[in-house]
């Protein structure tokens, strides 16, 4: 706390990490130079599906500056494949949810077949990237083309070519879940409606691509890996397993990371191949992914096809919901079933729906693997559900906001148990919140429904088409299994903190310093945050799934509390009083009610040290350091209402976002400035996804969005102003009362925009149940459905 006793938590502190990033002194993976470093270039498949007949490396190996050229066939003899899944679901889930999984193990380099354009089949290592790329061009691939499977539906057809023959199916996984009696409730519903929704494939597209540098120390046979990853402890685990060396001999560090958004949230083949090469060659090796590679080998996301049936009554009350969906997973499934299960668990969102049946299938296709990206299965669920609500409203002639209200869980019903399981295997409990309140705030922020409907009518008379759309989501945040924190008070009195979490721009060096500064009554600048380094803490989960503020703050709370007790015991010894008489003061520990009777944290740390002449009382062990691993009981639920007013040009199909408002709740807020930054960034990704961004493959599985000239990341001119309104429903599940915020912004925009565009074009009876919604789709929808 400050001298005036105001906590740092809750204040918009400016970021401590800014100075290095603003002055060009940040250090990203491509900025790391090591002596005698070699550079790797991968040779990637130009075909979507083909048998590898041969890989001729002879000319590449003889090229100037080349240290090694290696094919997948050779590597397969030297290195086992990746595990079948890096993120297993807990037994509480596997024992309670009907499921099957068939996950293949990806090799470091393809050796029998290539399964998507961009899959690596060989690698060349040379003394510069230029030399490595020159040599890579000399590699001759002899590929026997096989028919490509480019949609999930086609993959699951009876006669589909098999992508992984040994599985004897293209089905990577399936599960079903639900509650109540959908068949009976659907049969008894006064109204029923069926629609197909497709949420297209797009990608996280961080401005920094991936990259890995590895250094082998032959003296101890240990490896240090610098990777632009969100999960340093996963990288350590997989490298140790694959190279067969103890985890204690593997260190993974993430430097400044230029955005992750989930894409950098699992271990890629390059994370393993580069350390292998460094060890084999006895020189540091680095690989920096370029943007063309990024688009064809770093994970994509979304790409779900939903067939939904809903039963409802005359008032718009939803009585039953059935959803059968399939996920186009691409050629590999590194993180297993978590994302599709997220979709199922978030489908009913803020609504009370007693009868639910969801079945999901995940299909292998000849595309880049589909993994978690900001929202991780939730945008697809919210798109389907929120479109359904508007379609129900439209069929009954009701206001969509009113249908939402009639189905919504109220604040008085919290905590609310929807009667289904989360992916941690625990029954879902919406722990706190006011959903109708958020809806109303978002609508008010765009001027209110009544005023808008008048404006809309007037505009239509002038031949202009305005629409109002809502996207509402709830999001389980802070998922387990755990995150830890180590807190140590140094002899200088500075507080050192390490954790398995890591920042890709979230501002963790600032927010965790705020939290720790309050806990010890020191200045944030006296807190040293050292994350993203496996040397800092034995175990770590990593940063993904809107989990780090929730789990690290809780781990810090418990570590700090244990350490405080120890510090008080030592301070009591120094001050010759009882520990119960002590309190924390600015920068030290003092006797309650006795000004001046105090010792600094530095003095306490000095007294805590091991060795001669320490100041510890009897029975207190040396050192002033604690580690606590927080295992959350389950997730805590954030939510938001997004409201958009758009104007659609029916002739050219353009969409102008006139107003965009977000009413959001992530519990207790550590730093409002940074929370708003997270929401704005997520929202822009959601808007970019629904309006511009599109990973397009042709029928042969060729990637047509192979550059940023083809894959349209939104610019400043494309994005609207955003109005944000906040609610603060404390989480009862962690000491600070926080909920996660990282992903939420990206979840609702596709639904809000689709609803707004459909509302604008209601006179044409146009529905928008497929993303992206580009001008050509809008113009076509208008052409197909002339006004009644």
């Amino acid at each position, binding site marked *: 706390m400050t001298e005036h006793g105001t906590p740092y938590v809750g204040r918009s502190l400016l970021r401590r990490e800014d100075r290095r990033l603003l002055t060009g002194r940040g250090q990203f993976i491509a900025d790391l130079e090591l002596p005698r470093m070699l550079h790797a270039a991968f040779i990637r498949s130009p075909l979507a599906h083909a048998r590898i007949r041969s890989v001729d490396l002879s000319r590449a190996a003889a090229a100037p500056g080349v240290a090694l050229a290696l094919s997948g066939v050779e590597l397969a003899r030297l290195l086992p494949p990746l595990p079948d899944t890096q993120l297993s679901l807990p037994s509480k889930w596997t024992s309670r949810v009907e499921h099957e999984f068939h996950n293949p193990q990806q090799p470091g380099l393809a050796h029998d077949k290539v399964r998507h354009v961009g899959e690596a089949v060989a690698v060349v290592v040379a003394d510069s990237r230029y030399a490595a790329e020159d040599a890579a061009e000399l590699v001759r691939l002899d590929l026997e083309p096989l028919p490509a499977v480019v949609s999930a539906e086609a993959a699951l057809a009876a006669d589909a070519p098999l992508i992984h023959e040994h599985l004897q199916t293209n089905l990577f996984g399936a599960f079903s879940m639900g509650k109540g009696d959908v068949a009976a409730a659907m049969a008894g519903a006064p109204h029923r409606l069926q629609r197909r929704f497709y949420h297209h494939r797009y990608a996280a597209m961080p401005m920094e691509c991936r990259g890995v540098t590895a250094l082998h120390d032959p003296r101890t046979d240990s490896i240090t890996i610098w990777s632009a990853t969100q999960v340093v402890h996963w990288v350590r685990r997989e490298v140790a397993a694959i190279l067969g060396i103890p985890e204690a001999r593997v260190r993974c560090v993430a430097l400044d990371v230029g955005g992750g958004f989930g894409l950098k949230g699992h271990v890629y083949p390059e994370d393993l191949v580069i350390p292998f090469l460094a060890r084999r060659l006895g020189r540091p090796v680095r690989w920096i992914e370029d943007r063309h590679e990024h688009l064809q080998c770093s994970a994509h996301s979304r790409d779900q096809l939903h067939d939904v049936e809903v039963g409802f009554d005359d008032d718009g009350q939803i009585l039953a919901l059935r959803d059968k969906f399939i996920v186009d997973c691409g050629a590999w499934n590194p993180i297993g079933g978590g994302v599709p299960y997220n979709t199922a668990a978030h489908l009913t969102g803020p609504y009370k729906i007693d009868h639910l049946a969801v079945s999901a299938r995940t299909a292998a296709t000849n595309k880049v693997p589909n993994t978690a990206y900001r929202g991780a299965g939730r945008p697809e669920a919210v798109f389907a559900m929120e479109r359904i609500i508007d379609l129900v409203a439209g069929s009954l002639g009701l206001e969509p906001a009113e249908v939402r209200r009639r189905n919504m869980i109220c604040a008085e019903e919290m905590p609310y148990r929807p009667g289904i399981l989360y992916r941690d295997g625990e029954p879902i409990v919406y722990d706190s919140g006011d959903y109708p309140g958020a809806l109303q705030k978002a609508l008010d922020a765009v001027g209110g429904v009544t005023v808008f409907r008048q404006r809309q009518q007037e505009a239509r008379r002038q031949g202009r088409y305005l629409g109002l759309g809502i996207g509402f989501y709830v999001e389980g945040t802070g998922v387990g299994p755990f995150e830890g924190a180590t807190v140590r008070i140094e002899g200088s009195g500075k507080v050192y903190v390490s954790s398995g979490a890591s920042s890709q721009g979230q501002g963790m060096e600032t927010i965790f310093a705020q939290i720790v500064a309050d806990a010890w009554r020191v200045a944030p600048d006296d807190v040293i945050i050292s994350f993203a380094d496996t040397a800092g803490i034995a175990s770590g989960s990593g940063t993904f799934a809107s989990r780090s503020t929730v789990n690290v703050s809780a781990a810090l709370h418990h570590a700090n509390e244990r350490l405080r007790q120890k510090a008080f015991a030592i301070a009591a010894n120094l001050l010759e009083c009882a520990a119960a008489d002590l309190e924390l003061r600015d920068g030290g520990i003092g006797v309650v009610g006795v000004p001046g009777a105090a010792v600094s944290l530095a003095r306490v740390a000095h007294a805590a040290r091991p060795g001669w002449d320490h100041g510890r009382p009897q029975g207190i062990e040396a050192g002033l350091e604690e580690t606590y691993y927080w295992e959350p009981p389950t997730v805590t639920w954030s939510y938001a209402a997004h409201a958009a007013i758009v104007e659609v040009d029916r002739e050219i199909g353009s969409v102008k976002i006139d107003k965009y408002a977000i009413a959001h709740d992530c519990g207790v807020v550590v730093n409002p400035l940074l929370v*708003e930054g997270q929401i704005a960034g997520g929202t822009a990704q959601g808007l970019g996804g629904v309006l511009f961004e599109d990973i397009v493959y042709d029928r042969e599985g060729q990637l047509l969005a192979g*550059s940023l000239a083809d894959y349209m990341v939104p610019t400043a*001119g494309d*994005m609207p102003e955003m109005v944000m309104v906040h609610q603060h429903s404390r989480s009862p599940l962690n000491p600070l009362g926080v909920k996660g915020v990282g992903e939420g912004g990206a979840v609702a925009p596709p639904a809000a925009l689709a609803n707004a565009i459909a509302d604008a074009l209601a006179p044409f009876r146009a529905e928008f149940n497929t993303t992206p919604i580009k001008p050509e789709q809008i113009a076509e929808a208008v052409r197909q459905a002339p006004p009644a």
Partner: protein
Amino acid sequence: MSEIREIRLTVNGKSYQGRCEPRKLLVDFVREDLGLTGTHIGCEHGICGACTILFNGEAARSCLMFAVQAEGAELLTVEGLAKGDEYHPLQQAFHEHHALQCGYCTPGMLIAALDFLATNPAPTEDEIREGISSVLCRCTGYVNIVKAVAAAAEVMRGARQPNPAND
């Protein structure tokens, strides 16, 4: 590969001299040969703008130029913006308005904004959005970048002093 060429140029007011192949990209030369790694590479095909620098006073994509084209040129990179420990008004405004998250696009964004404000010192919000649309940011949704550029424009016009107390 081919003959090595000597290049003399001025970067951030300092003279440099280096040797490289004619095919070497300017951004690689600045980063690898001159050691100025503040300028980033985001796409190497001229779309993302992370590599934007001032080339003889005008914004340019250093990934779309060869180092040899910079013979005798004057460059400004992000490292040349601050005066010692004192932020340039754009840096100060980016800090105060939380206009950066991961910081990867930031060097290019700062230089693009500097170039834009040189041609339009008193822009409207729409003009700022247009003016910085040559650089992609994936973190911020541009909301705070637009605010920061507006605030910096005001300071650079001399209408307001930066507030160092907030640093």
